[in-house]
């Protein structure tokens, strides 16, 4: 489970001054559900997910991820999450297998367990054909599969996806979407950010609309429709954002 409580992140910019990228954000994601953060570019989605992934530290507020506090127990939080974003690239000079092995070892897996996990993941994701090829030689679809295997190698209870389909081709996007659904089916807590309405509509059990660092509305698609009186998610989104 993920529980964010008054999470706030402020950046200092030389030109623009103080920027409150995430402002007193609170929400709760349940296991076996997909929680979607929907917002335009620069709304604060990535910062929010980086705070949950302990890559950044909040200025105030906190969050608990899989029962661990992001401020007090960051290493334990990172051990419990799988973090995937378009920014989380692969080491080009490592092979697909070496890449996944490296992250398995960073997560402290014993060698026997690690190899068992790798065999199972590589079969499930159909990666055996390119397991010994260097990541720099892989297609974008293959790369995305390696990234997925990398996030799953330690079998984390919480999955954090930051715009995972952004900039990838249709087939790769389908692999990712399938993978996210699979995580939900296996009872993992999934938080997912996107600016694509259709993707949020298709995948999310709960949607939070984030704008200028604030959560403007939160609920199931049905609840959001009822709140705004709009049917299409794009209309729902615009009506929520403009209501501000």
């Amino acid at each position: 489970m993920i529980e964010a409580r008054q999470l706030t992140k402020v950046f200092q910019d030389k030109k623009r001054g103080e920027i409150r990228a995430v402002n007193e954000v609170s929400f709760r994601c349940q296991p076996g559900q997909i929680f979607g953060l929907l917002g335009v570019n620069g709304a604060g989605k990535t910062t929010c997910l980086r705070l949950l992934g302990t890559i950044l530290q909040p200025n105030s507020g906190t969050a608990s991820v899989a029962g661990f506090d992001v401020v007090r127990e960051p290493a334990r939080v990172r051990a419990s999450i799988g973090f995937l974003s378009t920014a989380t690239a692969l080491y080009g000079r490592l092979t697909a297998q070496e890449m996944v092995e490296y992250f398995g070892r960073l997560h402290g897996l014993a060698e026997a367990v690690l190899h068992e996990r790798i065999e199972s993941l590589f079969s499930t994701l159909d990666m055996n054909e390119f397991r010994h090829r260097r990541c720099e030689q892989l297609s974008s679809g293959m790369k995305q599969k390696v990234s997925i295997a990398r996030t799953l190698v330690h079998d984390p209870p919480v999955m954090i996806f930051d715009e995972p389909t952004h900039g990838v081709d249709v087939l790769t996007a389908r692999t990712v979407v399938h993978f996210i659904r699979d995580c939900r089916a296996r009872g993992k807590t999934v938080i997912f950010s996107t600016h694509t309405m259709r993707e949020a509509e298709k995948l999310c059990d709960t949607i939070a609309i984030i704008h200028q660092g604030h959560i403007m509305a939160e609920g199931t698609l049905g609840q959001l429709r009822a709140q705004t009186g709009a049917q299409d998610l794009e209309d729902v989104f615009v009506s929520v954002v403009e209501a501000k």
Partner: protein
Amino acid sequence: MKGLRNIGVVYRKELLDSLRDRRTIISMIVVPLLVMPVLMLGMGTMAARLVIRARQEIPKVMVLGGEDSPKTLAALRAHKTIEVAPASQDYTNLISEKRIRAAVEIPVGFDAALQSGERQTVQIYVYEGEMKSSFGAQPIDQFFRQLRDATLNERLAAHNFPERLLRPIEIRQTNVAPPKKVSGNLIGSVIPYVLILMCMTGAIYPAVDLTAGEKERGTMETLLTSPVGRTHLVMGKCLVVLTASLVTTLLSLSSMWGSFALAKRLVFRGMSGGLPLPLTMDLASLAAVFVMMLPVALFFSATMLAIALFSRSTKEAQSYLQPLLVITILPAVASLLPGLELNSRLALVPVVNVSLVSKEILSGTYHWSYILLIFGSTSVYAAAALAAAVALFKRESVLFRM
């Protein structure tokens, strides 16, 4: 234990990753293995050949005047190691333009003055600092010295005076330093300088690749999602940079030793009389110098890691590190400066201290108090640089500097 294991995991991966990078291999292995032989053999051979050729060349010299001194003129013309060119008033330009190597002016009435016992001045004109000109002037100078001595001996003999009357004191210089020290003093000036540079050169590329390179390729965020603490990540990375630096240094040393042995056989063999000086390289001293380089390598590795980490891109990192290389050359030159000797103040100046103590070690002098002080102080500087790198790695503004 867990921390050490994590450092080991990061180290092994980063090392594997670096070894697959052509640029790292070039800077770590190819450069030291090629640069040293090229420098020592190539340049050495060229310099030695030029000197040999210049010595073999019979210099063209001009004799000015001397028409009334046929005896001296004939002796000069008969001299086998010079070729006498026709006299010309333009001798100054001819020497400057290297068309003749030197000129000698014989004063009017020289032969007669020698007989009568009058004092004469023979003027030799040269191009100062020009090797071939000095090779041209040498035989003339020698000719007139011999003529002076012979005339003097004749005059002394005519008056039944013994030669010792004119030379009451004989001055002789004898080298008491063992050959190792003489050689260490000569080679010891160059080796520390080259090693310090190689130690730094070897660290530059991996330091950039493992920090700014990671940012640029987008793997930094991937790495930060792992549960390994940032201190351990920096330590693992720093150890890889250190390994690259030490491998470069070790290969440079080996290559230098090998090239030196080869150069001794190939280059100096051609010189008449063999080696002009007793040049030897002692393996134990080289090993001791390598040990002194350990904290220096760590200091460079951590400093460069910190600087490169601060950069947004590899290009920016390289533009910060190139001037650092130039700045480091200055203190490294300490071993090349004549007369600069180690003292307790200099022993605390980073790079200068190692440069000077390595020179002493290579000449067989082990000042243990200085050696310990320098090893200790450089280790402290290295630890401070590592602490700075760790502190930077924990700063969001540095990791996500856009």
